[in-house]
């Protein structure tokens, strides 16, 4: 068998950011075909899970799921179910109903009125991909859907016979195949200075930071990263959290939990065999965690 000699890298605007797909394999034409399929998967996630598109599943349930059961795309239902599981496991720190607060703070467009003060427990997922709300809550999958899109794109590439590659949706990425990839982390304050690099193989990495996203609201500084239990913003000292896990959806969602819980997130990280790295304002690592794993290489810190 010939080795994967060609590399194709393409990018499209999607999910509110730039989605970049790198694929390695024999035939360039085949790689382009596979990348087209992967972008189709990303586009489906964007179409169904966007808070902004009026025709998306998320807009539909935000408008109607309080009054009646709404049937959604099986992918949307799966992401909602995963979000519910993480809300349960984090005791409500991860909560997709924080959309209400994000809307108040203008991180999301103010498209809904009369939103009640509910939480994730007011979302009921029923069989045949139906959803209903017990309260007039609104949801946003911004903290998890990007990771899911990356996972679906990787699956599409693998199904199309791509040997190895990377899918990177605005910083949430997944590396697959035998080749390892070096991923640079943005410095929390100077975005174009790397604060370090991580070697990944068959693994996803997601980073949540408050670098571009902080806003001043009266005397308080707010960001889109908040604790679902209190609707308050997490510690201002930690400014960037990276989580590595086997799938990107989990890594994406875990960053939000680690932002709040820090060291207390160890049991949850261990359950998902995930690793975490917290960076301070000056780019220095504040805290690192590695899941115990028998099959892994020893981890090196420099």
């Amino acid at each position, binding site marked *: 068998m010939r080795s994967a000699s060609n590399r194709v890298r393409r990018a499209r605007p999607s999910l509110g950011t730039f989605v970049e797909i790198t694929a390695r394999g024999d035939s360039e034409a085949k790689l382009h075909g596979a990348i087209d399929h992967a972008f189709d998967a990303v586009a489906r996630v964007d179409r169904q899970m966007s808070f902004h598109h009026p025709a998306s599943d998320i807009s539909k349930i935000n408008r109607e799921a309080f009054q009646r059961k709404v049937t959604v795309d099986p992918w949307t239902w799966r992401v909602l179910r995963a979000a519910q599981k993480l809300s349960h496991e984090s005791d409500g720190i991860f909560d997709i109903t924080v959309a209400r607060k994000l809307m108040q703070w203008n991180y999301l467009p103010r498209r809904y009125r009369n939103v009640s003060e509910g939480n994730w427990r007011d979302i009921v997922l029923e069989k045949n991909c139906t959803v209903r709300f017990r309260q007039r809550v609104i949801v946003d999958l911004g903290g998890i859907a*990007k990771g899911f899109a990356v996972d679906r794109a990787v699956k599409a590439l693998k199904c199309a016979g791509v040997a190895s590659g990377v899918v990177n949706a605005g910083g949430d990425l997944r590396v697959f195949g035998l080749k390892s990839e070096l991923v640079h982390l943005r410095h929390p304050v100077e975005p174009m200075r790397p604060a370090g690099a991580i070697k990944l193989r*068959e693994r996803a990495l997601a980073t949540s930071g408050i670098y571009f996203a902080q806003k001043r609201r009266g005397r308080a500084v707010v960001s889109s990263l908040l604790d679902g239990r209190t609707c308050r913003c997490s510690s201002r000292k930690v400014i960037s959290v990276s989580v590595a896990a086997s799938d990107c959806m989990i890594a994406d969602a875990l960053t939000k939990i680690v932002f709040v819980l820090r060291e207390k997130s160890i049991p949850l990280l261990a359950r998902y065999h995930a690793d975490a790295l917290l960076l301070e304002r000056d780019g220095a690592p504040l805290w690192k965690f590695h899941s115990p794993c028998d099959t892994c290489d020893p*981890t090196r810190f420099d």
Partner: protein
Amino acid sequence: MTQIPRWILPAAITVTVPLPSYAEQYLTVSAAQKLCFPECDQFAPVHVKFTPAQIKAIEAKSGQKQLLRGQEIWRAMQNGKLHGFFIVDYVIGKHLVIDYAVALSPEGTVKQIEILNYRESYGGEIRNPDWRKQFIGKGPRSRFALNEGINNISGATLSCRHVTEGVHRILATYEVCLK
């Protein structure tokens, strides 16, 4: 099987080389044309130079400022039959300069958007009009791949809002100049 990542953190952050910009060339114009219209055998350039009236009309229709004096447009043809339009455009954000291509159907609906070149910069040169001017209306080029060692970046999400706005401007350009 999962694999633990190696966090390779420099011992002293202060000695790391600052990166003024990150650049990537994804596709050449001709490669993007073939991807957007694989069935087509001819791409006939119909580049337009805007009249002041057209600029006004595009700005009114799109709600966007039209900074370009013209637009690079190709008619995608198969055996002489029009299959759509291939349009190259540029957007400049706070930290970004992007060349991208939009494929339109003959009726003016968006078929595909591909990023051709992507440059991210925090070094201040992006605010320099002379530096920016070199990107306007000259077609994609590759000499800006400054940092070949950096292939993947993880960090806070950069918005693609400027491209979305650019596509609205392209649709207005279609209405004004191509319909």
